[in-house]
């Protein structure tokens, strides 16, 4: 298929700009060559993107159980609200008296999410999850530095963590201390006690963890860190399992990020825009990125926290994502948020139990919003790997689960159905998974060469990683 740059002819295009009604101005530095813009008609443009649309798989196409990514269905009313002209026509520099509604949206969502998180202040500046982690860990750093405690140089991260956690700690200038998980996938308390000390700046933890299990020792874990003088950071990647049921703040966490694009149902998977809202307890509020929205005498305005770490993104973050998340939160309400989390957990357990007699579960116990299967035995018996099975799913029009993660489970498939799937869909999917399991025994070759019916066959992932082509080469 041709790229947009290879379509159309020189000079063809669409007049999108209205006639200029202000004096022309020459930029001080001229470009040495013209911008490479597509030269296509509106018709060609529409057909190009429609063709692309037909070749991809999104939540609007079918089941998308990508573990740890919370690919839930995004209600269309969220899009309607984000498309209101009052929001889309805003300029970030216009006087705040004329943007009171937008500030109210930020303020309202901050208060609502503060309630869900169990936190006292929320910022929407971070553009996505890892950016939120970075912001949260900078708050921890600012807290220690402000107290003159410069000996705290280490952040503890369990080995089941998302790769972004150790990367975040390193980016913030901390040394990463990796601690092993126990056989139950939870934090090994003895290893944690042995790891903490006067050099502990904090802990980064996801709960439920990456194997979909709620760490029953969570209060003990956060106490061990606090007793050592460190702070606790909650990676909200798995918040969908517990929102409205338990609050990270009540588990003993001091700050948190939440991927609004996952838990609060805004579109994701295409590279953004996302939003990594960061919440913190009152004692960290003075370090938050500025500005924060405040309400005074019935009017909304901006205020900079006293010892702010500074901006982490221009203006107010990805505001359109905030509007979608606000719509989601307000349409579900307090009981709906809780119900969504409980149905996410129920769906995961339904699929887990349907599949556990056929597949080997990495942890054979009640899970939260996702569960992990290990295909080590199947691989040994039939030569069919988790990758092969995942590729086989494509031929049935299903998006595969997350593969080979978490790293502590070999030949892992990690399944997160989300609350928005029906029993009928899950029944059908479980049937297909079992059919593929049988196929692995009866005709492994078909799975080694899958997929067969997709626009492209098995991609050369090794070649793509070793010889990266990251931009289009113009002639």
């Amino acid at each position, binding site marked *: 298929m041709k790229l947009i740059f290879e379509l159309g002819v020189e000079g063809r295009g669409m007049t999108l700009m209205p006639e200029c009604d202000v004096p022309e101005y020459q930029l001080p530095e001229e470009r040495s060559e013209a911008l490479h813009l597509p030269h296509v008609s509106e018709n060609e443009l529409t057909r190009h993107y429609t063709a692309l649309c037909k070749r991809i798989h999104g939540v609007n196409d079918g089941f998308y159980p990508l573990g740890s990514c919370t690919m839930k269905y995004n209600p269309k009313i969220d899009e309607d609200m984000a498309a209101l002209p009052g929001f889309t026509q805003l300029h970030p520099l216009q006087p705040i008296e004329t943007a009171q509604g937008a500030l109210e949206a930020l303020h309202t969502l901050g208060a609502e999410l503060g309630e869900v998180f169990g936190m006292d202040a929320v910022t929407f500046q971070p553009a996505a999850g890892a950016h939120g982690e970075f912001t949260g860990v900078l708050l921890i750093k600012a807290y220690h530095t402000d107290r003159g405690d410069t000996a705290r140089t280490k952040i503890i991260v369990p080995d089941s963590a998302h790769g972004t956690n150790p990367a975040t700690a390193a980016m913030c200038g901390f040394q990463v201390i990796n601690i092993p998980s126990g056989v139950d996938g939870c934090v090994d308390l003895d290893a944690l006690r042995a790891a903490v000390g006067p050099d502990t700046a904090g802990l980064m933890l996801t709960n439920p963890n990456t194997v979909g299990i709620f760490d029953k020792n969570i209060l003990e874990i956060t106490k061990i860190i606090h007793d050592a003088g460190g702070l606790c950071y909650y990676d909200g990647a798995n918040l969908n399992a517990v929102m409205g049921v338990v609050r990270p703040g009540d588990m003993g966490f001091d700050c948190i990020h939440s991927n609004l694009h996952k838990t609060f149902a805004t579109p994701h998977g295409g590279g953004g825009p996302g939003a990594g809202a960061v919440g913190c307890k009152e004692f960290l509020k003075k370090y938050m990125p500025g500005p924060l929205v405040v309400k005074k005498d019935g009017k909304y305005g901006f205020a900079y926290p006293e010892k702010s770490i500074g901006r982490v993104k221009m203006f107010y973050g990805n505001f359109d994502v905030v509007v979608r998340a606000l719509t989601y939160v307000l349409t579900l309400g307090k009981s709906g948020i809780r119900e969504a989390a409980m149905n996410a957990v129920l769906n995961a357990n339904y699929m887990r139990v349907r599949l556990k007699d056929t597949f080997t579960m990495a942890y054979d116990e009640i899970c939260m919003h996702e569960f992990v299967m290990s295909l080590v035995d199947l691989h040994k018996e039939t030569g069919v790997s988790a990758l092969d099975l995942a590729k086989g799913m494509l031929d049935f029009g299903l998006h595969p689960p997350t593969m080979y993660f978490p790293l502590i489970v070999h030949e892992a498939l990690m399944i997160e159905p989300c609350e928005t799937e029906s029993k009928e869909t899950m029944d059908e999917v479980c049937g297909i998974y079992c059919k593929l399991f049988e196929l692995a025994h009866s005709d492994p070759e078909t799975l080694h060469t899958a997929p067969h019916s997709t626009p492209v066959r098995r991609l050369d*992932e090794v070649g793509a*990683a070793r010889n990266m082509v990251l931009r289009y080469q113009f002639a």
Partner: protein
Amino acid sequence: MNIPAELKYSKSHEWVKMDGDVAVIGISDFAQDALGDVVFINLPAEGDSVTAGESFGDVESVKAVSDVICPVSGTICEVNEALADAPETLNSDPYGAWIIKVSPVTDTEALLDAAAYEAHCAQEG
């Protein structure tokens, strides 16, 4: 699976060849098979000190990034820089593609011989 009898091994799947007072270190056939196709290696620098049981670099495959754990302690006296441009040799020739050489060497007590390592691999599946 290829487990040369003359080498020593660690439980984290690195091999060690003692060459006088120099330890030559790489990753085992089991390790490269479990990793899948290696696309990148993060090498340490000559002169770095290494500690048995601690990471001295990492390898990235299409599946994941994994630490390479040093099976002995000492100082790195040579790094196989050629791996940076050809990380795939870790897959095609795991026992030829050494990663670092360490000298002088201490903390070798926990190393396994080929038979013990083979038993360890069988256990890990």
